[in-house]
């Protein structure tokens, strides 16, 4: 075979990787081999956490609703609240709309009062 120099192909590939990892700390953005490894780890984390993000937010909303429903009443909790929601066919106020509990607290109180009765 004729002689083939590798030229700039590897450099271009590594430049892209380095651009991706350009904001990493220390050697993770400077040394090539470390950079490629850190880039792989970053991408894996982001892939996994995209699914996790949905779970995390749902947990957060549930905790918030729980906190709000336990404030005024004894023996009231998130589970009872959700049970009443479904029983009253308020089928479609999802957990994200216990952001209402944050922003318009009185609306949330009205909902919960309506549901209890």
């Amino acid at each position, binding site marked *: 075979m004729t002689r083939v120099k590798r030229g700039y192909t590897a450099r271009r590939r590594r430049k892209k990787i380095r651009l991706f990892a350009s904001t990493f700390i220390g050697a993770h953005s400077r040394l090539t081999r470390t950079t490629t490894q850190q880039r*792989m780890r970053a*991408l*894996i984390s*982001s*892939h996994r956490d*995209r699914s996790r993000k949905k779970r995390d937010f749902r947990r957060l909303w549930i905790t918030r609703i729980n906190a709000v429903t336990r404030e005024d009443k004894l023996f009231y909790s998130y589970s009872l609240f959700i049970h009443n929601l479904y029983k*009253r*066919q*308020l*089928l*479609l*106020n*999802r957990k*994200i*709309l216990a*952001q*209402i509990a944050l922003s*318009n607290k*009185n*609306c949330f109180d*009205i*909902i919960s*009062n*309506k549901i209890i009765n």
Partner: protein
Amino acid sequence: MATRRLLGAVARPLRFSNQPISSLPNFGTLTLRSKLVTFSQSPPSNTLNALAYTSIFRCFSSRTPDYSGSEDDDEEEEDDEGEVEDSCDEEDGSEAGPKLVAQGGKSEAEKLEEAASIGYKVIGPLTPSENPFKPYEPVFAVVQIGSHQFKVSNGDSIFAERLKYCEVNDKLILSKVLMLGSRTETIIGRPILPDAAVHAVVEEHALDAKVIIFKKKRRKNYRRTKGHRQVTHSPSFLQ
């Protein structure tokens, strides 16, 4: 994801005689104004066919809704996903409640709009020169698009999944409104408010930022890389 831009918009809740459940008792003295607007639209084509269909918006004179009674449940809820056949919105006047101005339009939809309303929207006309954005009002509505719910108010814009049969600058009417609220009153739909409608205008079709899907199994010599861009629509809520 992008930030929300504030444009003028209004949520239009509609009150109908015994449908919704309102909470605060000071509705005895509501004065209603009626507004007559009729216009016919020819919404843009469906996906590939150039179907021309018209939906006519009619406005009726005002009614005084019953807020005193009707603590009971409404009739059975509609199905969760799917057919909202006619988007029947009756027009009310506006209330003299402290901060709530509500209006709506009634549309007699043809059957071809059923397809459009699977995603809980109805296509209105394109807006050539209208500037329907109202200034901000402290009312919010909870709207469902597809399987996502949004808490919207006048002038919000939102990123939604791809909506079929929509083009840029289309007016949409989102017919699945779950709740309405303002500083003084809340109306809770069970599960939806049958006569409430939220109007929106599709601002853009866009692709999301690129997401790199990277899978790796260590020590097993397995690595896969893929890129993905999701199509989004962004409607912004007007009156």
